[in-house]
């Protein structure tokens, strides 16, 4: 814990000339309360994931009751992960990656257009592009389901429970994240860099590719990560746009909890938690965590 945040009232006491400052002060009640509070919050935040991983490693975990902390360590449940889970995970991964790519393709030009363009009503466009984030996911799910029914009745092309249908639904909520993060990077962008490149004789395209794009890349990565995660963890939209045999991983899990509590579910869930942690570690290496956190909104 850092001491700067715990400065106490006794700093008010007049300072002696140059005393040997005591190296250890008795922690105040406030400091202890703060540590306890933060620890409790972290316990609340992380306990569910720790428990899932822990109980997935336990051989005594049975269909009726889950055992935590684990008594005898085993990887048995990992061998028994049903094939349906791998299929669902595969679909989720492919979907989330393509949503992230699609969101970048649509989001980057839109962000450039909004920030650099000389259109009136810039704030209108920003609000417009942010709109899908404000709509509750359940409403988006119902709306797309309804849209596909109407479309299917009119054209005979039913998008329900198809990859394209699901993709459009997730793209709809994914694009705003890329736009948001790229806009926030662009607003801090130093235009002099581009001017310098242009005045040195670089073509506009070359300037864009060699100067603009590398500078906004952290925003792109952060936005793509958000789009990926939104798609990868979504239940309420996919719930309406999938069908038995064609489900994403979170939806498979959602129904799993209601039907049977198979401990193998805990095993595959643990794999996903570990995967998320690795992805985050890679991101930390690539662009730094602070960029991800700051470029939100």
């Amino acid at each position, binding site marked *: 814990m850092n001491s700067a*945040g715990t400065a106490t009232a006794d700093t008010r006491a007049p300072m002696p000339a140059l005393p040997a400052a005591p190296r250890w002060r008795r922690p105040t009640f406030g400091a202890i309360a703060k540590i306890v509070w933060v620890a409790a919050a972290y316990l609340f935040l992380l306990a*569910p994931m720790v428990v899932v991983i822990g109980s997935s490693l336990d051989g005594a975990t049975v269909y009726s009751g*889950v055992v935590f902390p684990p008594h005898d360590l085993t990887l048995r449940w990992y061998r028994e992960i049903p094939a349906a889970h791998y299929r669902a995970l595969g679909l989720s991964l492919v979907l989330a990656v393509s949503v992230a790519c699609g969101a970048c393709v*649509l989001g980057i030009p839109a962000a450039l257009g909004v*920030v650099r363009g000389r259109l009136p009503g810039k704030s209108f466009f920003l609000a417009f592009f942010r709109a899908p984030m404000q709509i509750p996911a359940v409403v988006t799910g119902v709306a797309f389901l309804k849209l596909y029914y109407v479309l299917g009745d009119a054209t005979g092309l039913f998008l329900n429970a198809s990859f394209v249908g699901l993709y459009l639904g997730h793209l709809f909520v994914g694009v705003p994240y890329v736009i948001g993060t790229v806009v926030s990077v662009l607003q801090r962008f130093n235009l002099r860099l581009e001017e310098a490149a242009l005045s040195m004789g670089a073509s506009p395209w070359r300037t864009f590719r060699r100067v603009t794009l590398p500078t906004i890349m952290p925003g792109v990565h952060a936005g793509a990560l958000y789009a990926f995660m939104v798609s990868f963890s979504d239940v309420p939209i996919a719930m309406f746009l999938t069908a038995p045999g064609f489900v994403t991983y979170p939806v498979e899990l959602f129904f799993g909890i209601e039907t049977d509590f198979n401990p193998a579910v805990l095993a595959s869930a643990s794999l996903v938690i570990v995967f998320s942690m690795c992805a985050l570690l890679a991101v930390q290496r690539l662009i730094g965590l602070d960029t991800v956190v700051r470029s939100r909104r």
Partner: protein
Amino acid sequence: MNIRWDYLLIPSFVVSFALLAASQLTFLRGSLSADLGLGMLSKSLGLQNYDALFNDEFYVRALWLTVKVSAMATVCTLLMSFPVAYVIARMRSRWAMVMLAGVVVSSFVTIVIKVYGLVVIFAADGWLNKLMLAVGLIDQPYTIIGNSTGVVVGLMQFTMGFAVLLLYSVVRTIPESLEEAATIHGASRARVFWRVILPLSLPGVIVGSLMMFNMCMGAFTSASLLGGGRIFTLPVLIQRTVIIETKYGMGATLAAVLLVSVILINLVSVFLVKRLRAARLVIA
């Protein structure tokens, strides 16, 4: 530079507009047709669904329950996450990044997995219940499935990671020197909080709370799983009406009501920010 950046806007605008307008308009139109049973909708349009919704005590109570549960979850999340955000924002050691990473991991793992964890923690024969029984805190195993406390806990799990990250960026906009100045001039820690930290973070906290409230209002997964078929918040009701009862008209109507309430909260939030800016309370 003589590049027309404006043109870049066109493709994304067209796609986004098409998706937004097509989906929202078709479902809003759907909310105007009566259900004829077996998923069929009437051809004529009317307000009968809205009429039924606001006259049926069941639906009105669901709306009220959604607001109540969301408000409770928002307040609890705020109280829990503000100190965490503050501590991380003011830390100077490398541990700040680790603590931040913990929060980000939690907000990136799908809520379904976290609900599994909650179910395991509060299992009737789990160690937590055994402990509480042994201590005498409770006299029968406590379950979080099927009651509104469980739903509130689920919603807190859903919003807390997001809340900490949001409040972290709010605290980061308050220069630490202001707190130091107040302390040097003799303010106690509590006084610094009430007179410096709180007023300066208030706009961010209010906007953040409204965003959290919105998230809770629309939260489906945790409310559905922990409600256990007994607690019906609006999103849960929408899914049931559409998928189980196949009443597409009524489902769309409920969705429209949810959408309108969320938009209203957003407008309030925008209005509040403008007022606070005008009052020069926002420094960043």
